[in-house]
């Protein structure tokens, strides 16, 4: 635990990527295999299941700290991180512990089925044996959400440095549904195990957004365009007569979409398709909001299957007849994919809509000029897409987010000017700063809450707004403060739909702050009716 805690402390203590990679590399060179495996597992969000709920953890921590529960809660609001708050309020440790990371994790796994008294005794004993930072890490493992500024990419880079294995190969090996309990470091990193690789997705290739003029991409004849569909990016694998559907967040979602079992009948073994899962009914794409009703469900009932059927709109073919196609030019991969899907459609011409395989092509489009392409982008909302994807015709399928070959060019977001009405303290690096804001729009001379946003301002702007909030608080409700309505912010969002759950009657998607309109008096902010007029 000491070595792992020290690693996290070093990573947490610097903003410099090189120092983080260096610390991780050193760790991967010196730690024991078991600890390395669990470190990879934790940093790729494969923690053991939570053995105890956080309410009990708070209670037990306050008991040995002599701090009343309400004061703990107040402290938590201010510190902004539960694991950190518990670590801070506990009394100073009275012994030290030499347990390794893997030993602690095994204990945590074994703890889960035990009763609360045992759990309490275990936690309280260990808290008093760990120093401040070890405690913090221990609590993080227990509560989850190990977000310390180490991306999977960065960890893979360090592991590649330490092992000498190519980082793209490693990225592939680290994908999938392995856990620290069902594999070993040797097996995960060094062995070429066909069985283990069978259900593993390829790392997704992600595009950057176009920042400047789209025409800067040069000769348009080198580029292929298609719509950027608004669903769940996915990878569908058919191998060993089994289907695996992965979301881009590396979640295995096969069971959530039983519709896709049909692929097993029509697609040959050794096929991997990159595509978008979309809600689709009566030959039309439905709203993303409809898909959300299915995302949260582990299993889906008949009604939901009927109400919100899904399809996959295929973007790319990564594997065909068991062969990795990723190094082929995009155009060639697409030619095989187009053949595959069009043939399938031909075969199914006569069958009813419900009987058809839920697989469509994301149509590729060629344009003669960037102006023509821009015109197509203007149709995106109408076609229920988020904008366009622009892919170089000869591009390979790369690993992770890479600049150069693939670009996304989204539609311009909606935006309104709204008034800041409530503020809450942020978390993580924004703990103790008021950075989470609620915004209102005018209706009959009153401000009606319509969205919350917590991104889009610079650190310097957040500090200014924070200072202003602290001086202009009207009322406090736990961590939330109402403030004197005064400041106007431009809020952008991607989608808008009517909603019964919101007081305003409108739900917006991914609202964020675009700019602080210091030039605008609050009377000139938009009205709720202005917002409703945007609903398509």
């Amino acid at each position, binding site marked *: 635990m000491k070595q792992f805690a020290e690693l996290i402390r070093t990573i947490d203590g*610097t903003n410099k990527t090189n120092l983080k990679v260096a610390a991780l590399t050193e760790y991967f060179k010196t730690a024991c295999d078991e600890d390395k495996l669990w470190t990879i597992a934790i940093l790729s969000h494969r923690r053991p299941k939570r053995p105890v709920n956080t309410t009990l953890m708070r209670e037990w921590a306050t008991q040995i700290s002599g701090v009343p529960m309400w004061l703990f809660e107040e402290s938590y609001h201010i510190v902004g991180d539960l694991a950190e708050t518990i670590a*801070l309020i506990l009394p100073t440790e009275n012994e030290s512990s030499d347990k390794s990371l893997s030993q602690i994790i095994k204990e945590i796994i074994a703890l889960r089925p035990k009763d609360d008294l045992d759990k309490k005794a275990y936690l309280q004993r260990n808290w008093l044996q760990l120093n401040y930072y070890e405690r913090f890490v221990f609590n993080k493992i227990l509560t989850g959400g190990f977000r310390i500024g180490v991306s999977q990419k960065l960890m893979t880079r360090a592991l590649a440095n330490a092992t000498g294995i190519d980082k793209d190969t490693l990225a592939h090996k680290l994908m999938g549904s392995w856990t620290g309990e069902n594999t070993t470091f040797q097996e995960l990193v060094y062995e070429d195990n066909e069985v283990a690789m069978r259900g593993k997705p390829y790392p997704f290739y992600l595009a950057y957004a176009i920042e400047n003029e789209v025409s800067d991409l040069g000769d348009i004849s080198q580029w292929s365009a298609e719509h950027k569909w608004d669903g769940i990016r996915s990878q569908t694998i058919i191998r060993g007569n089994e289907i695996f559907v992965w979301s881009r967040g590396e979640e295995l979602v096969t069971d959530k979409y039983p519709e896709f079992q049909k692929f097993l009948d029509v697609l040959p073994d050794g096929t991997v398709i990159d595509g978008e899962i979309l809600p689709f009914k009566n030959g039309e794409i439905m709203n993303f909001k409809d898909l959300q009703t299915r995302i949260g469900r582990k299993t889906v009932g008949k009604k939901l299957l009927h109400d919100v059927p899904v399809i996959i709109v295929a973007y790319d073919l990564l594997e065909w007849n068991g062969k990795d196609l990723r190094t082929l030019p995009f155009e060639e991969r697409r030619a095989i994919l187009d053949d595959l899907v069009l043939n399938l459609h031909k075969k199914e011409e006569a069958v009813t809509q419900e009987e058809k395989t839920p697989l469509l092509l994301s149509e590729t489009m060629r344009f003669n000029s960037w102006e023509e392409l821009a015109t197509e982008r203007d149709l995106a909302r109408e076609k229920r897409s988020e904008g366009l994807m622009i892919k170089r015709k000869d591009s390979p399928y790369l690993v992770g987010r890479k600049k150069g070959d693939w670009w996304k060019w989204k539609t311009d977001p909606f935006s309104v000017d709204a008034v800041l009405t409530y503020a809450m303290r942020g978390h993580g690096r924004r703990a103790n700063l008021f950075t989470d804001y609620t915004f209102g729009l005018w209706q009959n001379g009153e401000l009606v809450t319509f969205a919350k946003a917590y991104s889009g301002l610079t650190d*310097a702007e957040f500090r*200014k707004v924070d200072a202003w909030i602290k001086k202009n608080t009207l009322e406090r409700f736990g961590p939330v403060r109402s403030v004197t309505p005064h400041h106007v912010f431009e809020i952008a969002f991607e989608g808008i739909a009517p909603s019964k759950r919101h007081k305003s009657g409108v739900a917006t998607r991914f609202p964020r702050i675009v700019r602080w309109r210091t030039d605008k008096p609050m009377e000139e902010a938009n009205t709720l009716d202005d917002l409703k007029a945007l609903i398509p």
Partner: protein
Amino acid sequence: MLQPLLQFTKKGIYCKPAGIYLDPWQPVNKALITHGHADHSRWGHKKYITHNDNVPIISHRLGEIDVSGVPYNDSFSINNVKFSFHPAGHIPGSSQIRVEHKGEVWVFTGDYKTEDDGISAVYEPVTCDTFITECTFGLPAFKWRDQQLVMDDINIWCAQNHIEKKTSVIFAYSLGKAQRVIKHLDTSQMKIYCHGAVYKMTEVLRQQIDFPPTHLITRETTKEELAGHIVIAPPGAHGSTWMRKMVPYVTASASGWMTFRGARRRKAIDKGFVLSDHCDWDGLLQSIEATGCENVITTHGYQDIFARFLKEEKGLNAISERTQYEGENSELETEEKNQIVETDPGTENNIAGQHTSSERSEENSSSNSNSGSTSSTAS
């Protein structure tokens, strides 16, 4: 009902029977001043009374003022109200103020800490009925380690940077924290260079305290000269062009706020040392107990939370009062905030309209070397 001996008024804490204010935040005729930080000793009073050691400090900060000094523990009377100054341990020259009238005793702490920092007169608890206490760090999350341990960490960090030929830049408030760090730095291998604001204040304090030699960074100071040595600068210098001279450098901040991981990370500082000139949670509780008081008034900090704790858990008659001392803002953020005002005068009135001219003039004088035209903010 009897009026309280000390009242919280628009201009500051007021002792009506004596007609005198304690650390007022608006200009008054007569002010008793606990210490030299800008939020406690503001510009514009007609007469300042403070501890002897604080006289050169506030004279340096505020320029031509009418100030008289008194020693610790010596009482003087105004209109039958007895006043005396007692060590607060916060920074050199800092005091608590004891006020006695008709057998009733009040103590106002200003800012204070219980640990001996080696440069300030050590805090002494003063018995009283009513204790007005700051609570900047009035949460159980705050627990300080011994200064020696923290300074060991700082010295090890500087020595490591020295080996790597990097300059160690430590951000510390120019009055108090800077001198506390300077006093305990290991100078056997490294020299201490200072930003102008820190250098000048340290020179003022040299009349009272022994410090290792410090060197002023001027236009003529070269990169080569600084490489591998230590630089002490106010937090406002972080991210300014002034820092270019230190390249390659690593940065650290010494403050109680460094307790929070978030605070350290959002400041984009390489290293955070938890070193505070205020009481931690236990320090506050022990001090309150040592005064034997029945009534507590909590001011700047987590005053509502702290007052509730004292009331519910300690059975004290505790209330909180608003002041214009930099409550939720740390000593660190006070300077930082001014720095923002300085770099972006356009929106100043919107968000920082409450800045007094004293804060502004102080910040201008302390950061002239940051950027050429700081005076543009003085409206």
